[in-house]
């Protein structure tokens, strides 16, 4: 598809403003970022730091006000609506904070959906969707509807849907934001495994301990990159596997969720 020498993401001086005149808000003020194939990147920042705006631009859901963004070596600002839809379909897999499965539609059909939009034949896409479900450990729930699954399971289905088209980039926006400890762990484990298999993953989070799963950490403050480094492990007692609350010691009672 694309020549391997291109980075998956290459952004130069991305600026995004909302509104104009007095009320103009600068969500991004000059973000440059390069992500190579196979990287596992976490983007961190407090709310309002511009991380969701960045994710929307990286995911071709929104267009930057100025700056250049190359996805797989292609300048997406030159693409029209149809081509953008194709790019989202083929090159990007999304995992959203809210589970974003389509209600009253079987898990299998949900996972099949991007393939259906790509125009794949029914038999082929069923086979690929089942394989994707196996990889997130939910093969036995293929015929359930989203409402029959737990939050963590739904989010794993969303991951399966994101990877079913074998995209160059998996974008996960707060994938554990609505999940309890255990479910967060499950989802992050799936993402970790995907990265080990060579997928490029960009994880957006405000949680230091979720970010620990990545290999590289980009911190945003007020729409600017303030640090871009390899992950430094947290002190041991703060190590965290997808939990949002401090780990309870073995001999203390767990706080009810």
């Amino acid at each position, binding site marked *: 598809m694309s020549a391997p020498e291109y980075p998956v993401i290459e952004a130069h001086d991305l600026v995004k403003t909302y509104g104009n005149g007095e009320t103009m808000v600068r969500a991004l003020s000059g973000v440059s970022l390069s992500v190579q194939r196979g990287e596992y990147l976490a983007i961190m920042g407090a709310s309002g730091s511009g991380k969701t705006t960045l994710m929307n631009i990286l995911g071709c859901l929104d267009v930057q006000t100025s700056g250049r963004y190359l996805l797989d070596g292609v300048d997406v600002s030159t693409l029209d609506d149809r081509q953008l*839809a194709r790019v989202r379909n083929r090159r990007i897999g999304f995992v959203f904070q809210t589970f974003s499965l389509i*209600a009253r539609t079987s898990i299998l059909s949900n996972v099949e959906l991007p393939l259906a939009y790509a125009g794949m034949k029914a038999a082929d896409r069923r086979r690929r969707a089942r394989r994707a479900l196996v990889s997130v450990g939910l093969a036995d729930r293929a015929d359930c509807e989203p409402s029959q699954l737990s939050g963590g399971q739904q989010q794993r289905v969303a991951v399966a849907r994101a990877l079913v088209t074998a995209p160059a980039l998996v974008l996960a926006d707060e994938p554990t934001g609505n999940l309890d400890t255990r479910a967060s762990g499950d989802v992050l484990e799936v993402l970790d495994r995907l990265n080990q298999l060579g997928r490029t993953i960009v994880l957006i989070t405000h949680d230091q301990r979720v970010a620990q799963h990545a290999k590289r950490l980009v911190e945003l403050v007020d729409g600017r990159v303030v640090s871009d480094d390899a992950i430094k492990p947290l002190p041991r007692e703060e190590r965290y596997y997808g939990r949002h609350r401090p780990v309870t010691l073995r001999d203390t009672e767990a706080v009810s969720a």
Partner: protein
Amino acid sequence: MTTIEAIRLALRAVVANKLRSGLTVLGILIGVAAVILLTAVGNGSAKAIQQSIEQLGSDTLTIAADTRAGGPAIQNTSLTIDLVDALNNRDAAPDVKSVAPVVTSAQTVNHEGTDHSVAQFIGTTPAYLSATNDSIARGSSFTADDVTDRRRVVVLGATPATKLFRGVDPVGKQVTVGGTVFTVVGLLSQKGGTGFGDPNDVAIAPITAVQEAVTGFGPLNQILVKAVSGDRVTAAQSQAQSVLKDKLHLPGTGNQPFRVLSQSQLLAARDDTARTFTVLLAAVAALSLLVGGVGITNIMMVTVTERTREIGIRKALGAPKRTLLTQFLTEATVLSLIGGLLGVVAAIVGSQFTILGVDPQIAPGSIALALGVSVAIGLFFGSYPASRAAGLRPIDALRYE
């Protein structure tokens, strides 16, 4: 995404909101059923008129005073018995076979305390029955002697016979009309309806008796003329016209104070009325279909708003604009098509009953048309909400809560 998948998806979405979809479908159902049924009624009444043209035969002429024409006011131009005699003159009108004077009015007929208002209480001569192709089902008609002797006898149509006597044989019984007692001597055969008024709601009596006892000796309402044969009607018409002019001392040109119309011309006029009526009904029905269509737009707008987030997700997953457009258009079309199909069923059921005195005749074309129109309505009224859904920016759709 194949068409079958799109339809399955649409069906699932329709079933997901049963009540809402049901009400929307009802709007289309009513519209489609109304269109099919009302055109069927029009069709049925046109057929009935055709039939009565055949029944009446095309050899009858009706002479009626034309109230629209001014005419010289000093002359008395009303239709009288004298004119009947003049028309019976074979020398002046060789193509006229028989002539029947007609006085008619609505009268209340009473039999042993039961009242029935007869729409047409007709005073005439026996020639009337052959001119209108009426026949006697039971008993006998009155005779020329009855007319001369002013005998108070009456022949009842099927409607007053059943209304007044309820299964008892009316022949030989007595009825009261305007305080005068008439003896029933016969019953007319049942006649097919024309859609306007009940042709069986008649009573026929000798003109002399009717004028004496009921209506008074005013002018005639009509004179019925029967031509010797169907192909001599035109000749008989002009002969009758000249006889009348002669008798009434009218100038040769200008508006005539009377009209001579062949039965088929009369029915053609009624046929026109029926057609106008049908078009009017169909227009009202089409309007209700339009209202149903607006209902579809309305419900699709609600659906699109409700599913904005879903649309956002689909867009993020790479759904092309056209696929989303197709999805929502299919949904709208499925809604209206279900309405259309149920409307056809409702119309077929409804057509089994007599409506406004007419047996509705469903034209097969109207079913195909109604289904086609309901698909078109779905496409047309669904297109705005669908294009709104397809045109949403993914980022806006995803942010929508």
